[in-house]
């Protein structure tokens, strides 16, 4: 567990939005290469803020961010690190701005210096891997909610990052799309950090859980310490899964 195995290393991070209240205060968090971690916390506890900070979109007011063992100081550092960390936004509508799916997925590779032909090939291959073949000429804006989430994931995977960070990948999605995302995530060989309100989803995709409270992250348990209990459930004909 040397420092070189740490992909994300946050030390004593504090942050408040201009209009006041502290969102993060004295937060520290480490994520190893190959780890699959879930993050749970109430609304407004600062999960999205934290992810944006890891991407270099929001600078911390205090503390140090080290990614892949290097301390991040400037926008230039982050420009490099973004090649290796991909973030899927909470809301796919915020992530997709090109007219067609193909253009959206090719956007990242183009920025990384791929030629138009190459970017196109990468995009098509990524779509194929996510079983989205045939979507390339669809208008991103008109996709259904679940399809948008999958395309948003494709736009990030097209850049082949070593670390995949996802902000509530399943909110508002039905069980089928949920299952599809679970199975995609479980075939990926990447370091994962997933924010979600859904215990169930996290239990199926990650190995460790973290919680967020009072501006800090705390370790909440391994998958092995999961416990089970009764819960109420709609029966009838509505299809649902028993785990």
């Amino acid at each position: 567990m040397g420092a070189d195995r740490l992909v994300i290393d946050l030390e004593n991070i504090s942050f408040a939005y201009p209009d006041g209240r502290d969102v993060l205060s004295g937060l520290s968090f480490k994520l190893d290469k190959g780890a699959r971690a879930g993050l749970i916390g109430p609304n407004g506890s600062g999960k999205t803020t934290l992810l944006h900070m890891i991407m270099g979109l929001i600078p911390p007011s205090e503390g140090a961010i080290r990614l892949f063992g290097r301390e991040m100081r400037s926008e230039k550092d982050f420009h490099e690190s973004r090649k290796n960390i991909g973030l899927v936004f909470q809301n796919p509508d915020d992530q997709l701005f090109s007219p067609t799916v193909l253009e959206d997925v090719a956007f990242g590779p183009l920025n990384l210096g791929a030629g138009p032909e190459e970017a196109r090939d990468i995009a098509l291959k990524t779509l194929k891997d996510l079983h989205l073949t045939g979507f390339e000429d669809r208008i991103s804006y008109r996709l259904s909610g679940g399809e948008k989430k999958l395309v948003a994931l494709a736009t990030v995977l097209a850049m082949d990052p070593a670390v995949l960070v996802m902000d509530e990948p399943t909110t508002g999605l039905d069980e089928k799309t949920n299952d599809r995302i679970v199975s995609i995530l479980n075939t990926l060989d990447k370091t994962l950090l997933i924010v979600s309100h859904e215990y169930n989803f996290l239990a199926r995709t990650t190995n460790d859980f973290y919680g967020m409270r009072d501006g800090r992250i705390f370790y909440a348990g391994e998958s092995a310490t999961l416990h089970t209990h009764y819960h109420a459930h709609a029966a009838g004909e509505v299809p649902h899964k028993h785990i």
Partner: protein
Amino acid sequence: MLSETFAFGDSPIHRLDPRLRVVLAGLFSILTAILNRFPAAFFAVFLALVLIGASRLPVRQVLSRLAVVNGLVLFIWLVLPWTFEGTPAVEIGPLVGSWEGIRLCALITLKSNAIILALIALVATMPVATLGYALHHLRLPDKLVYLLLMTYRYIFVIETEYQQLARAARIRCFKPGTNLHTYKTYAYMVGMLFVRASARAQRVHQAMVCRGFSGKFYCLHEFAFKSSDWAWSSAMGISLIVLGGLEWAPIV
């Protein structure tokens, strides 16, 4: 990020009746805009500074707002004195600056700054919503007031949407430059803003219809004219008459 920097404060000006502030700002701006004499222009700047003082706004932020106006004023300074025919005042190489040109530039500088300062003190000190209600009470057409309020309500939503799109581009390693890829990306983001704005407008209209909207707008807000409002009206009335006097009184 958008914010209403000056709107929320506590000062004699913040407490004035918004209708009065709008009317005063209008009168002051119009009067100052048509001034031609220096004593009057200086007095206008003085009045504006008094208003800024009374509004207790952070000096540094007020100055940073002035920078924008003065950028344009600077542009005029860079061209006008050197091209205005008249009595030579300065020479730099082949360029000759005339007194008349310099005089005109100086006058513009004073007037621009006075008007903007008064605008900051009197109008930027109220939230746009309050301005909307004040304009409603000043008999502006309902449609225009509603358009203003609707625009105001959604600029923050849409600005957040834009920030998110810009972030989405950044996390995918987008680096703006002078090239087609960059302009295309911005054009797509702008196009997306318009499309989402339009779709949102449709949903908002549906939400209005669901709550019984049938084309009529109402205003809940009432304003009260207080004694301090009378005091300020008289003081400003007299000042504006003095300002007019400095401009139009025959020179003795």
